[in-house]
């Protein structure tokens, strides 16, 4: 027997299986389509009041179409022969004879496979034995088939029941309208009232908003009409803050924020100030005591503590350095006077901070001027009091005065070699702000430090012995100058 003719029986079996596959696909698609179509039909029937009696027809058509069209599409979908052959092999226990034979034929048949003829004959014989075999596909349960009864029953009930009214209130108002004839109440306004009676909290619709005053007027004007309740507009009655007061409060807050620079520095408490310890200690040291009874060691200790606490270039650092120098030279009286002066300056500074007097020019003044700030303020006041200064500011750093403006900023410098305003000192050649003592203070303090370093170097014998006196003489000359 020729292989191709032998495979006829195989192809017959494969066609049978393919038909079964298409039927199964169609049935499944039909059940699923019917289920979803029935669900859609229920939705359609809910709108029967708008669609009228045609909704029933549309629903039936929808169910039928949803079942039939997918079923037809699934039935017409081709089934690959190899897939059908595999299914047949599995279903009838053919040990993949059919699929292998068909695949070998498609791949060249006897030309490519030596055993093809024998295989084809074997497959045909196996297929011929299965002519009266049951379907290759076991029955398949479709889930939608089991659930279909529910939407179908609901659709049938909706189809038999009368149409649901689209708006129950409107229907009721329509019914009441004849009874309310001649009472100045039309059906829409009646519906609105009914709606408010049913939902008192709901806001009236935009198109039918009725003001309470109008409502009252209408109620008073229509004798014997339904008594109109006094409705309160809750939206208006709410006590929300108005925008104007909010803006006003905001302005006040902003103004307060702008003034923070001029407010007293409340964070620095005098009672807990670090300077208070120095004051107390200085009082302990100098209370009614003869300066000669104080030891140089205690004075030096106090001065070093002040030096540690004070900022470099601070307003009382000059006295501290003077005191230290005096102590080194053994002049206890001069050192004690320096300490008193420093403490007095310190006390004045503290009081100024507490009283807020110094805040007039902001913190810049304190940072830049120190003691000079008072003088600058005095000069500015005198300048303002002078005739011809009309229109100029009376503050410490008035606008329009270039000199004062130069002084006000810490980045401005003076002419090289310009002397300080208050105290003569050595010209260090350093560029510094005019009128501020820190330059001299730093020079004085550094001189003492260098002298101590020089003594240490001599003690460590880092300087040749022959030059000891010469070096000391040099530092003495600096001190005298």
């Amino acid at each position, binding site marked *: 027997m020729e292989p191709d003719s032998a495979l006829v029986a195989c192809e017959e079996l494969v066609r049978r299986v393919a038909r079964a*596959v298409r039927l*199964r*696909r169609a049935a*499944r698609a039909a059940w699923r389509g019917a289920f979803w179509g029935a669900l859609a039909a229920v939705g359609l029937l809910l709108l029967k009041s708008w669609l009228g009696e045609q909704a029933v027809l549309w629903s039936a058509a929808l169910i039928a179409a949803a079942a039939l069209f997918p079923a037809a599409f*699934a039935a017409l*979908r081709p089934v690959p022969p*190899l*897939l059908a052959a*595999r*299914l047949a*092999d*599995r279903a009838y226990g053919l*040990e*993949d*004879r059919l*699929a*292998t*034979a068909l*695949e*070998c034929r498609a791949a060249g048949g006897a030309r490519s*496979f*030596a*055993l*093809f*003829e*024998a*295989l084809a004959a*074997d497959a045909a014989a196996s297929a011929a034995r299965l002519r009266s075999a049951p379907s290759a*596909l076991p029955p398949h349960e479709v889930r939608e088939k089991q659930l279909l009864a529910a939407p179908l029953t609901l659709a049938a009930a909706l189809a038999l029941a009368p149409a649901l009214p689209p708006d129950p209130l409107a229907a009721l108002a329509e019914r009441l309208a004849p009874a309310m004839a001649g009472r100045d109440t039309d059906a829409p306004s009646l519906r609105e009232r009914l709606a408010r009676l049913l939902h008192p909290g709901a806001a009236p619709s935009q198109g039918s908003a009725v003001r309470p005053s109008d409502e009252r007027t209408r109620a008073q004007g229509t004798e014997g009409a339904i008594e109109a309740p006094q409705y309160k507009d809750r939206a208006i009655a709410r006590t929300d803050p108005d925008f104007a007061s909010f803006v006003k409060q905001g302005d006040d807050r902003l103004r307060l924020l702008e003034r923070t620079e001029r407010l007293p520095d409340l964070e620095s408490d005098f009672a807990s100030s670090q300077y208070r310890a120095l004051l107390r200690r200085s009082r302990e040291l100098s209370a009614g005591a003869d300066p000669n009874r104080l030891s140089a060691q205690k004075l030096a200790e106090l001065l070093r503590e002040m030096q540690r606490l004070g900022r470099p270039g601070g307003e009382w650092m000059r006295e501290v350095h003077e005191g230290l120098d005096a102590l080194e030279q053994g002049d206890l009286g001069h050192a004690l006077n320096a300490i008193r002066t420093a403490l007095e300056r310190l006390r004045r500074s503290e009081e100024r901070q507490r009283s807020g007097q110094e805040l007039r020019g902001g913190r810049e003044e304190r940072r830049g001027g120190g003691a000079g700030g008072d003088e600058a303020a005095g000069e500015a006041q005198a300048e303002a009091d002078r005739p011809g200064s009309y229109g100029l500011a009376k503050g410490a750093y008035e606008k329009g005065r270039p000199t004062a403006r130069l002084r006000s900023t810490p980045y401005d410098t003076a002419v090289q070699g310009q002397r300080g305003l208050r105290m003569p000192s050595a010209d260090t050649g350093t560029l510094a702000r005019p009128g501020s003592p820190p330059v001299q203070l730093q020079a004085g303090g550094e001189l003492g430090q260098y002298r101590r370093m020089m003594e240490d170097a001599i003690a460590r014998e880092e300087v040749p012995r022959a030059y000891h006196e010469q070096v000391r003489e040099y530092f003495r000359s600096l001190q005298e100058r």
Partner: protein
Amino acid sequence: MSREARVEAFVGAWGALRREMEKVIVGHGDILSGVLTALFCGGHVLLEGVPGLGKTLLVRTLASSLDLSFSRIQFTPDLMPADILGTNVIVEDSVGRREFQFQPGPVFAHLVLADEVNRATPKTQSALLEAMQEASVTVAGHPRPLPAPFFVLATQNPIEMEGTYPLPEAQLDRFLFKLRVPYPEMADLNAILDRTTGAEVPRVERVLDKAAVLRMRELVREVPIASHVREYAARLVMATHPQWEGAPEAARRYVRYGASPRGAQALVLGAKVRALAEGRYNASVDDIRALALPALRHRVVLNFAGESEGVDPDALIGEVLQSVESASRRELERAVG
């Protein structure tokens, strides 16, 4: 001879060989099928079982039923590669001239029994590597082909591990099948006692010669296999790889390395032999499924978790089979729609 006649001859030879072997070997039907399948595939077999189960007897019986040369090598720790492969010796001819002459080792036989192969050192074990894969050996720089058909049957004892050298994965992979020889059933044990303690000694006839074996090997390769069957074998091998997306959970947890492509070759070739032995002209998915255990169990390398939990490779491959089968069924269901 027509194709059908050749297939019938194959089925006849298969049956005759089994009958001859069953004269001596009681039970162990799967082991006999596995050994014969490997013989006609052209592969080698590793027999694993406790002592006294008839592993060596099975191989000797097979050698007796085939008209092939047979040699037995007892692997011991002091066995050297030259003891297996052979060596050059100085031979003096009739005129007194001396020359080197190659003396072939026991590996130069059609049927080689490597008894207790895990007792030899790795150096000696590796001497078998080239022989098993290439069917040739190289001695003193000269490659020497081994006689065809060349069929190695190795045995090893799984419980007596002291003084043994477990076979490395590379060498295990060269065995087509690993067959586990189980303990006989009660009825089989009675039959064994009856046969081995009586006066009658069963005589095994030679039913197949070298040429017939080679012809059958050629026939095996002509058996067609459908694409979905081949794909099933490939999917089975891939499912033993933990990193493959379709691998089952057990493979992901316990496997370090999955089966090599030689595993898939063993599945397909074995399926073809099995189909012929059953008189079919095509390999089927059932054939692949039946050979999954002997073809894959020694090719799956367990990881630490698998070793520490004592995972049995057979159970693991069972899960792989189940996973692939259900995936294949799902795929078919989807195609049906």
